[in-house]
Structures are given as structure tokens and as C-alpha cells.
């Protein structure tokens, strides 16, 4: 259940951005969650709905964009989006690939109201 600590970090970031932009309310929080970031979206949503009540995000809506794994093959150069948890190139079966996306947890955008 590390989703609670992740949400605490997220809300703390939101509060800092709000402060820096003289906002008194955050109305939308857009995040991107990689399928290999190790976070369960449903639990994160529950954690956010609980923790936001005592924060500037009280009325905020959480939008989660789930990012599949995207790899680039170093042999055939194909970029592929994968549905399974593997980094094998589906085009040529090579194991020599580079993960381009799908492993991070990112705060992407905030919608806020200013005084």
C-alpha cells in the first residue's frame, strides 16, 4: 500500500505549485502512470480521494493516464507499444531494446483557480 505515500508526495507537489502561482484552489490534477511504475491506479484513486480532503486539492478531480510500455528495438529500430509486461521486440523478437515510456509516475498538468 505504498499508494498512500505516493499520494502524499503528489499532494505536497500540488501545494507547492499552488503557492508559487498564488492559487487558492486546485481543480484538476493530471498524472501519467506507467504500467511498469509499480502503482495500482484504483488504489491510488482511493488514496487521493481520502488525502485530498485536508489539502488544496479538496475539490480536485484526479485524471490518470495509463501509459503502456513503449520500447525501441536496437536491432530493427521499430518502436512498439506493448500490452504484456515484457521488453522483447514484437517485430523481430530481439532482447536488445530500450524502454522509452511506461515506467514513470509523472505529474503532468494542474488546473488551478487564482484569487
Amino acid at each position, binding site marked *: 500500500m505504498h499508494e498512500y*505515500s505516493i499520494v502524499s508526495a503528489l499532494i*505536497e*507537489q500540488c501545494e507547492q505549485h499552488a503557492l508559487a502561482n498564488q492559487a487558492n484552489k486546485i481543480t484538476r490534477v493530471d498524472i501519467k502512470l506507467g504500467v511498469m511504475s509499480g502503482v495500482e491506479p484504483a488504489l491510488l484513486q482511493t488514496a487521493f480521494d481520502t488525502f485530498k480532503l485536508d489539502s488544496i486539492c479538496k475539490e480536485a478531480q484526479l485524471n490518470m493516464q495509463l501509459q503502456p510500455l513503449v520500447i525501441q528495438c536496437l536491432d530493427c529500430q521499430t518502436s512498439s507499444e506493448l500490452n504484456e509486461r515484457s521488453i522483447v521486440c514484437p517485430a523481430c523478437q530481439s532482447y536488445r531494446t530500450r524502454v522509452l515510456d511506461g*515506467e514513470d*509516475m*509523472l*505529474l503532468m498538468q*494542474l488546473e488551478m483557480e487564482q484569487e
Partner: protein
Amino acid sequence: MCKDCGCSLTRHEHDHLGAHSHNHEHHHPELHTNPQLNDKKTLSVIHKILDKNDVEAGHNRAHFEAHNITAFNLMSSPGSGKTTLLENLKEYTTLNYAVIEGDLETSRDADRLIAKGIKAYQIQTGSACHLDAFMVHGALHHLPLEGLDICFVENVGNLVCPASYDVGTHKNIVLLSVPEGDDKIEKYPVMFRRADVVFITKCDLLPYFDFNLAEARAQLKKLNPDTQIIEVSIKDGDSIHAVAAWLKDNLRGAQ
């Protein structure tokens, strides 16, 4: 001077005040006025959610490096043999090591190591399911680092949560014991994707369990093609020698 702990290391591009006071890569805030809603602003950030932890992790790494120490993060399910391996390793290596222990309760693991003459410090996480960089930082100040080659961070037994947290170590060691089954690699892909080496422990039990080593290797290769598997049994001295050799080869600057 680090403001939190009084250590002599400065924090790189970081002053604890938050997002807008330092220049981070991927962090270029832009304010856009939304034409439909005059009083609402949209701020594009693109910022790692665990950035604060990652900055602290970098700080811990600097601590280790200042003492010329390589740090390894040991992760596995509870009971796969992390502490037992660390207890026994001492007989097989001349490298000096200390251990930061993470458990929900008790200092039993640190006590076991200290009884063997190994320096250890116990973090009790209460109900937290993983160690983060801040907890490890706190522990660092209780552990004499002088003269060490290696610091192990023995994470809370858990194949899920610790995978998301950089604690400031240099490499990740993931243990999988034979009784757990070879399918754990496929079931916990994030953890095994993060592994720099996988130790299959309790290999002396292989004759009694349907653990398929070839299948474990195949599954790991799909996630992490370059990661080596080392078969380990405390009852087989050669296997602990192999662990010691891997550690030596993976010290900072050894490659």
C-alpha cells in the same frame, strides 16, 4: 551543509523549499490561461511524483560515494533468506560491510547480524511497507561508514512497494527463494525489471519443489535480458563464493 542532518554534503540544486526554487530537468512550468474559464489556469509541469524522494536518494548516494562505499538494495518477499545470506556472507568475503535493516517491527534482524560481528542498524517502519530515501538517510547517521566497502540496505520484505522507491543505493539485488515458486518473476514484473542481479535462494530445496530454473531464467530474460541469476544455498559454500564474487565485480569503479 545539509540542513536536515548536519552532514557535510551539500544537496545538489535543492534547497528544501520546493519545486520552483531550483532548475530541474523536465520541469518547465508554463501558465496557460484557459479562454473558456477566465479564472482558471492550467499549469503544465511534467514532474516526477517521487522527485523529492529521488533527490534525497541522490543525497544518500553522495554520502556513500564520499566514503567510497558501494550500496546494494536487497529486496524480496519476507522469509526468502536476505538476513541469513548476510549473516553467512561474512565467512566468504574480505569486503567490509554493514547493513541497514528495514522491518515493520522488532530489531531481530539487526540483532542477528550484530551477534555475528556485522555492523547493523535497524529501521522500524511501523506500518510502512517499504523503505524510502528519507528513512535510509536517517539510518546513515547511526552507522559508522568509515572503512566500509559495502552498505547493504535490507528492504522490508515485499515484492511490490520497494520497487517504486530509489533509496540511494547503486544496485538492486532481488532474492527469490525456491519455495516461493518460479512464477513470482512473472507475477511481480516491476520488481524483477528493477533487479541488477537475481539470487535464487534455498537451492538445496530444488529436489523437493517444482521450481523450474529454466522457466525462471526465461521469464527474467523477457523483463531484464542482461540480468544474471545466481543459484544460492547457504549449505553450498561455492554458491556464497559466487555471491561474494558478484559483489566484488559490482563495486563502484570495478567494471
